C-alpha cells in the first residue's frame, strides 16, 4: 500500500475515546497526541525532524490537523496568531537542535505579549543528553528567560503530566508560552496513559493576588473626586474577557478610554468615549488627555516605555489606579496610588455596582476642544494628488471590509498606520507584535489566525522589509488552501528605521533602502494571484477583487517612499512633546492646535 500522504490530506480520524476513560499503555509519541487531543487541541503547527520523528509517526492515529510550516519560526508565530485570534492555546512543534532554536523568536514574541502557547520539541535520547550529540541543544536552558515555564521530559510516564501542566501554566494568571522538550527515547518507550491522573495541580493564584476592600474603597474614592479621569485600556481586557465590563464602567462614569496598541480591540473604536491609541504614535489629543488627567485607571496594561514617554514627566498630576493580574507589574515603571491585583473582570464587577455617579461632560468637552481639527477624521476627503499613501491604503481596506476583518500586521510604519486608520470594533480583530516588535510576524501569524477562525476574513498588512523575513510561508498558505489576503505596503525602505534616520540621524539612510523581488511574481510562483497598485483610484477595486477571489491574493501597494508616521514622540521626550504632522508635502495634514 502506498503510505505516501497526498498533499492536502488532513488527518481526521475519529478519536478513540476509550483511552481517556481507562488507563491504556501507549508509546510516548502516542501519549503526546493523546494528551493534546485531551486538552482540546485540533491544530498543530510544526516541522518534523530526527528527534521528533516518533511523534510524527504516530500523528495518523489522532484527529489533529498538522500544518507543515516552512521554517519553525513560522510555527511559533502561527501558534501565537492562533491564540491571539481565538483565545485558545496555540501549539507549535519542532525537532531538536536547529528546529528548537528556530522557535525562539516566536516564543519571545509570545512571552513579551503574554500569549498562551505550548511548544513541543524533540530532544536527543536521554542516554546521550549532555554529550553534544547530533542536533542536541539545551533548549530548556535557552528558553528559560523567554518562557513562563519549561520542561525537559526524559521518561514516557512524565509526558502527559508535563503537557497537561504546560497547558495549565500557559493559560492561567498572566498567560504566556511554555515549552516541553521530550527526549527521543521517552517518545519511543511505552507507559500507561492515564489522562485523568495526569491532571495538573490546580492553578495556585499568586499569593499577592488581592484586591482588598480597603484598596477598593480607595479606588472608589479616587473615582468619586476625579475631575479629569482617563481609562487606559490594555490587552489584559481581552485576556480576562472583560470587554463588556470595561464598556459599562466607561459609560456609567463617562470616563474616556485610551487604548494601548495591544488593547486597541478591547474597546470599540467607534464608541464615542474611545479616544484612540495612546503613546509614541498616538494622536495628540489622546496623549494630551493623559498628561492633563488627574486620575488614570490602568486596566490590564503595563506602562510600557512606548506608551509613557519619559517617566519623570508622565501624567504628573494624575493619581493612578492599576488593575493588573501580575503583581510584578505594580510599581514597575510608574508608581501607582492604588494597585488592585487580580482578574480584571472580577475586579471591575466588584467596582461596577459601587461606582459613583459623575458628570463627565466638562472633561469630555475639553478633550474634544483639544482635538480641534487635529483629527483627520476622514482622510478620504483629501484630494488625490497623484501619490499613493499608506494611510489611504489602510483606510480603504477598513472601509471595504466594513471593519470586520482580522488584520494581522508586521512591525514598522505600516503597523502604526494600521493602528491609526483601521478602526477595530470587534475584540481580537487586530493581531500584532507589540512588546518584542518582531518583523516577519504578520504572514505566519495570519495563517494561525485563519486556521483558528476559518470563517473570518483575514488580511495581512506588512511592509516590504518584514514580509521578506518569512515570505516562504506563502507555500504554507497554498498547501493548506487558505484564503488570506495580503497587502504589502511597499515603500522601498525599512520605513520606520528610515524615519528614525530622517529624524534623529540627519537623513543618513544607512542600510535602509532595499530592493525587493516583484511580490506579484513571487505570489504567482506559489500559485497565488496578485496585483500591483500604484494609484489611489486602484486601491478599492483591487481590494474588492482580492476579496472576491476564492484563493489567497497578494496586493503590492507601491506607496510614497519617504512618508513618515505622525504624531511621533522622540525617545526620552515627554508624552505631550509630540512631533506633529508636517504641513508641507503631506496631504494628511492636520492644522495643529496649540500644544
Amino acid at each position, binding site marked *: 500500500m502506498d503510505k505516501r500522504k497526498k498533499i492536502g490530506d488532513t488527518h481526521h480520524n475519529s478519536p478513540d475515546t476509550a483511552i481517556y476513560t481507562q488507563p491504556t499503555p501507549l508509546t510516548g509519541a502516542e501519549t503526546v497526541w493523546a494528551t493534546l487531543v485531551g486538552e482540546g487541541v485540533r491544530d498543530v503547527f510544526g516541522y518534523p525532524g530526527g528527534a521528533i520523528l516518533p511523534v510524527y509517526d504516530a500523528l495518523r492515529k489522532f484527529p489533529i490537523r498538522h500544518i507543515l510550516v516552512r521554517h519553525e519560526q513560522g510555527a511559533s508565530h502561527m501558534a501565537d496568531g492562533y491564540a491571539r485570534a481565538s483565545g485558545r492555546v496555540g501549539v507549535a512543534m519542532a525537532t531538536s537542535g536547529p528546529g528548537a532554536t528556530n522557535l525562539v523568536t516566536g516564543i519571545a514574541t509570545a512571552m513579551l505579549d503574554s500569549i498562551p502557547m505550548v511548544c513541543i520539541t524533540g530532544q536527543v535520547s536521554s542516554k546521550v543528553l549532555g554529550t553534544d550529540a547530533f542536533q542536541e541543544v539545551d533548549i*530548556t536552558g535557552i528558553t528559560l528567560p523567554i518562557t*513562563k*515555564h519549561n520542561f*525537559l521530559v526524559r521518561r514516557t510516564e512524565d509526558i502527559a503530566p508535563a503537557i497537561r501542566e504546560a497547558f495549565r501554566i500557559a493559560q492561567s494568571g498572566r498567560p504566556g508560552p511554555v515549552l516541553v522538550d521530550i527526549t527521543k527515547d521517552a517518545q519511543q518507550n511505552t507507559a500507561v496513559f492515564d489522562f485523568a491522573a495526569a491532571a495538573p495541580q490546580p492553578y495556585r493564584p499568586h*499569593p*499577592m493576588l488581592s484586591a482588598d476592600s480597603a484598596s477598593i474603597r480607595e479606588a472608589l474614592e479616587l473615582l468619586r473626586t476625579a475631575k479629569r479621569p482617563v481609562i487606559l485600556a490594555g490587552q489584559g481586557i481581552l485576556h480576562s474577557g472583560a470587554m463588556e465590563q470595561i464598556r459599562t464602567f466607561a459609560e456609567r462614569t463617562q470616563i474616556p478610554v485610551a487604548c494601548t496598541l495591544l488593547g486597541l480591540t478591547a474597546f470599540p473604536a467607534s464608541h464615542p468615549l474611545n479616544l484612540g491609541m495612546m503613546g509614541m504614535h498616538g494622536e495628540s489629543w489622546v496623549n494630551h488627555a493623559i498628561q492633563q488627567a488627574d486620575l488614570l485607571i490602568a486596566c490590564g496594561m503595563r506602562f510600557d516605555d512606548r506608551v509613557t514617554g519619559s517617566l519623570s514627566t508622565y501624567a504628573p498630576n494624575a493619581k493612578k489606579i492599576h488593575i493588573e493580574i*501580575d503583581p510584578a507589574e505594580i*510599581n514597575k515603571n510608574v508608581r501607582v496610588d492604588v494597585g488592585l491585583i487580580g482578574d480584571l473582570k472580577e475586579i471591575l464587577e466588584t467596582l461596577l455596582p459601587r461606582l459613583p455617579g459623575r458628570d463627565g461632560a466638562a472633561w469630555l468637552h475639553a478633550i474634544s476642544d483639544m482635538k480641534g481639527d487635529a483629527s483627520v477624521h476622514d482622510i478620504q476627503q483629501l484630494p488625490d494628488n497623484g501619490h499613493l499613501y499608506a494611510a489611504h491604503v489602510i483606510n480603504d481596506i477598513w472601509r471595504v471590509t466594513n471593519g470586520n476583518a482580522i488584520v494581522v500586521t508586521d512591525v514598522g510604519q505600516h503597523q502604526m498606520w494600521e493602528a491609526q486608520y483601521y478602526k477595530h470594533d470587534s475584540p481580537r480583530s487586530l493581531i500584532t507584535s507589540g512588546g518584542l516588535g518582531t518583523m516577519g510576524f504578520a504572514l505566519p501569524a495570519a495563517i494561525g489566525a485563519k486556521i483558528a477562525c476559518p470563517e473570518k476574513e483575514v488580511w495581512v498588512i506588512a511592509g516590504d522589509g518584514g514580509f521578506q523575513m518569512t515570505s516562504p510561508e506563502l507555500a504554507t498558505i497554498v498547501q493548506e488552501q487558505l484564503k488570506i489576503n495580503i497587502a504589502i505596503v511597499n515603500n522601498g525602505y525599512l520605513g520606520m528605521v528610515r524615519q528614525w534616520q530622517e529624524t534623529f540621524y540627519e537623513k543618513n539612510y544607512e542600510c535602509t533602502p532595499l530592493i525587493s523581488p516583484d511580490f506579484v511574481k513571487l505570489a504567482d510562483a506559489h500559485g497565488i494571484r496578485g496585483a500591483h497598485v500604484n494609484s489611489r483610484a486602484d486601491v478599492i477595486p483591487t481590494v474588492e477583487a482580492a476579496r472576491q477571489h476564492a484563493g489567497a491574493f497578494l496586493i503590492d501597494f507601491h506607496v510614497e517612499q519617504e512618508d513618515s508616521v505622525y504624531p511621533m514622540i522622540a525617545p526620552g521626550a515627554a508624552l505631550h512633546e509630540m512631533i506633529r504632522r508636517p504641513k508641507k508635502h503631506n496631504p494628511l495634514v492636520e492644522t495643529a492646535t496649540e500644544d
Partner: protein
Amino acid sequence: MLHTFVALVEDKTGLLARVASLFRRLNVNIISLTVGGTETVGVSRTTIVAEAAEDRAPRIMASLYKLEGVLDVDDVGRHSAVIRELAMLKIAADQNTRSDLFQLAEVFRARVVDLAPESLMLEITGSAGKIEGLIQILVQGNYRILEMARTGRMAMRRGHHASRVLEELGDTTPRIDLKTLSAASRHEAPDLLEDENHA
C-alpha cells in the same frame, strides 16, 4: 541596600537556575545564595542575599513567586530574624603561632577543627559581622589565610512560623503585606539586622 530573601522551592532539577536567572534578568546582583533541605520532604530552602534599592524588594518577591516551583517567598530582612553564616578558614600556623590562634578562636567562639604541622583550620558560625571581625583581626595580625570558604547567609524569622505548610495548619498571620507593594518606598520596616550584620 542588602535584601535577604528566603524562598521555599520544589526540590527539582533546574529550579536553582531559574532563581539565579531571574536575578540576572532583573539586573540584581546576588551577594550570596544558599540552598538546602527543609522540614518538608521535596522542598528546598533558598536564602538569597542581594544588593538592590530598597523599593525593589516587592517586585523581586513578586517575580520570584511567578516562577513555577517557588512555593513561598519571605523578605526576612524586613523582620526580626536570626541570620547566620558559616566560614572555614585555613591559616598558616606552626608551633610558635598556634597558641595565639587558639586564643583568638576562643574569643570569637570559633572551633579548631583541623591541625596540621604548618596550618590549622577554624570553623566559625555567626553573623556576617562576627566573621568579618575575625578575618579583620587575622589580616591585621599578619596571619596568612591560606584558604577561606563561606556558606553565605541562612536566615529564619524569630518566633514566627514562616512556612506556608504551617499556615495551612492554622497559622493565619498574613504572609505578604500588600501595602508593601503599593507603598514600598514609604515602608519603614525596622531593620533589626543592620547592627548585627555589618561590622
